[in-house]
């Protein structure tokens, strides 16, 4: 998700990226001519993007790309998923191997500036947290004084946790591992009191434990990890489409438009719904796609809540409470500008 090692590479890549970015203006035209959207996803991120038993891609990031494909082609199948490791993801985007990244990439300033990328929005507010055994009786991260903590080496996770403990003037004993599976296994076998990772990662780590119910996520969030789709800088048209597909998902949820009632809602007299679903105005045409783009997205992929529930809801293997990802009307951070 965020390896320190890539920083050095990123510097190199920025050189090539700067020249590459100039040559690529009309992504939307290129996608339409090609007949398929090239979407870079994480190779194995539970809940975000992973292959199911048949090898089809499923997940939160995957569903976003399907929504974008519906906006462009009115067909959720016209998207080609390219699994990209965290090391090669930015090059793949800069060199045009993919049209966008939808793969748990954290929005940071350096990525906006020196890497020549643009984030279309925060699809998922993540943050680093801690998971402990219930028997430890710890209720907050600050009570972890002197605890041994298992974590993955070479990631920003390591940096964040060291900052957190230094700021709070408490000590901890890091137990480092190369792979995330090893971290989980070590915690499970009792080698450390707690593990730290992004909270979405902890939720899926928990499922792997021998007794998942014996562990609990602490409420503290010690870092900001806003994840969202990324496109190349310098192509405002495609950027606008990716941004508004995300906003349409949110607006649909806010206005109560779901895949089940979308056709009914299209007959609504509510002007906001009419503008969203394309029965009033030329909003789709304004960004180079069909006017009923949002209607088709909701019908074929669902609104934000439906996508969230499908991948992180009660019926999914990895369950993550909406939390900060609730709509602003329900106390969360997800807020979309109006379609007007």
């Amino acid at each position, binding site marked *: 998700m965020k390896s320190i090692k890539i920083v050095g590479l990123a510097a190199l890549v920025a050189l*090539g990226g700067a020249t590459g970015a100039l040559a690529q203006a009309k992504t939307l035209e290129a996608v339409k001519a090609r007949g398929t959207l090239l979407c870079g996803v994480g190779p194995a991120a*539970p809940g975000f993007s*992973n*292959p199911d*038993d048949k090898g089809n891609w499923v997940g939160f990031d995957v569903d976003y790309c399907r929504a974008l494909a519906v906006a462009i082609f009115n067909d959720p199948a016209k998207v080609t998923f390219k699994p990209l490791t965290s090391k*090669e993801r930015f090059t793949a985007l800069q060199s*045009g191997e993919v049209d966008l990244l939808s793969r748990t990439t954290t929005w940071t300033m350096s990525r906006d500036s020196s890497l020549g990328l643009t984030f279309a929005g925060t699809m998922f507010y993540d943050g680093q947290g801690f998971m402990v055994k219930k028997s430890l009786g710890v209720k907050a991260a600050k009570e972890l004084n002197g605890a041994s903590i298992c974590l993955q080496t070479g990631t920003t996770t390591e940096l964040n946790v060291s900052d957190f403990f230094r700021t709070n003037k408490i000590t901890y004993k890091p137990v480092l591992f190369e792979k995330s599976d090893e971290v989980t296994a070590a915690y499970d076998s009792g080698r450390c009191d707690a593990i730290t990772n992004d909270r979405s990662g902890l939720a899926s780590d928990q499922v792997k*434990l021998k007794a998942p119910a014996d562990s609990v996520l602490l409420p503290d969030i010690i870092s900001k990890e806003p994840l969202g789709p990324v496109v190349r800088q310098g192509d405002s048209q495609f950027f606008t489409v990716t941004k508004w597909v995300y906003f349409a998902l949110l607006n649909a949820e806010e206005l109560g438009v779901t895949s089940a009632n979308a056709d009914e809602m299209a007959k609504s007299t509510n002007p906001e719904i009419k503008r969203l679903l394309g029965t009033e105005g030329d909003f789709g045409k304004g960004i180079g796609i069909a006017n009923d783009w949002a209607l088709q997205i909701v019908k074929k992929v669902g609104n934000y809540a439906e996508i969230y529930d499908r991948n992180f809801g009660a019926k999914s293997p990895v369950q993550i409470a909406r939390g900060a990802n609730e709509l602003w009307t329900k106390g969360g951070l997800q807020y979309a500008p109006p379609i007007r």
Partner: protein
Amino acid sequence: MDTQVAQGTIVTPNAGMNEPLPPPASLVGPLAWLRQNLFSSIGNTVLTILGLLLIYAILKPFLDWAIFSAVWSGPDGSVCRVEGTGACWPFVFAKFGQFMYGRFPDAERWRVNLTYALALAGVVPLMIPSVPGKMWNAVYVFIIFPIMAYWLLTGGIFGLPIVETQYWGGLLITLVVATVGITMSFPIGIILALGRRSKMPLVKWCSIAFIEFVRGVPLITILFMSSVMLPLFLEHGTNPDKLLRALIGVSLFAGAYMAETVRGGLQAIPRGQVEAAEALGLSYGKTMGLVVLPQALKHVIPNIVSEFIGLFKDTSLVLIIGLFDLLGIVQQNMQGDAKWFAPSTPMTGYVFAGLIFWVFCFGMSRYSQFMERKLNTSHR
């Protein structure tokens, strides 16, 4: 003939005597073998018992985990999350198609199977020395088969739908990378080895530079360069196929190592052999092809096969450039698909992948031992 046999019978000194008694039971049979090999002294007896205990200590928990308390069927990982269960085999069964073919479309998988069948049909007779027609067999394996395999796997001809290499995966990728690497590295290695011993300075220094450069960097670096840096230097949007880039990288890398192995064999051939060949008026090509190389290569069969086995296992490195070989796709599924999450899932996946790798590597190793005995015409 008859008279000779009859005469022989008459003069045989043993004629009419009792059949010789079998040796005493303490010298032959399984008991004697045990006594001779495992319990010949107090020290050996202790070692034998310790060894047996060790085997028992390792094998029992493993068999218990892999077979007796393993889960054999179930719709998802929940059956494997039950306390006290062993390996999670339904994970492997559910993903078996993916492990073998990657995301190759279901309806087209017969093409992969047909390719395997065609390969076996060519390679098996080629590997059995007594089967005649080696010349045509080799033409089939090295020229006709690769073309057919390319058509079959990629499609786009004879009405076969195109299957882009990004949908390939699992054992298919492992075998494609290993086979291409092995077949390409051999000629590349021989050419480079001969080039390095050449008297022409340009050829010699080019070969040395190439070998030393490629051997000086790890395979991961070469793959990484081909996947991450190369696209930045090319014109925007021109992306040569990722698998092709990996194949070229692996072939050149393996070729450089093979060159040094072959050179080791060449150096073992006494100078007199070359001089004798030249005295007979043989050209350079014939000297090498008929006299030097057949002897040299025979010496280095174990090393060549080691290279092949190493290369076969190195194929899992293509994971870092986002190609999912057998190990890669097993890891991807056990780390990514939360439906199958369970404490035993990763271990089950690794055991499965390890078993498949072992079958192939062990097969290669046994065949090379057979060839060594077959080619061992002298020098002993």
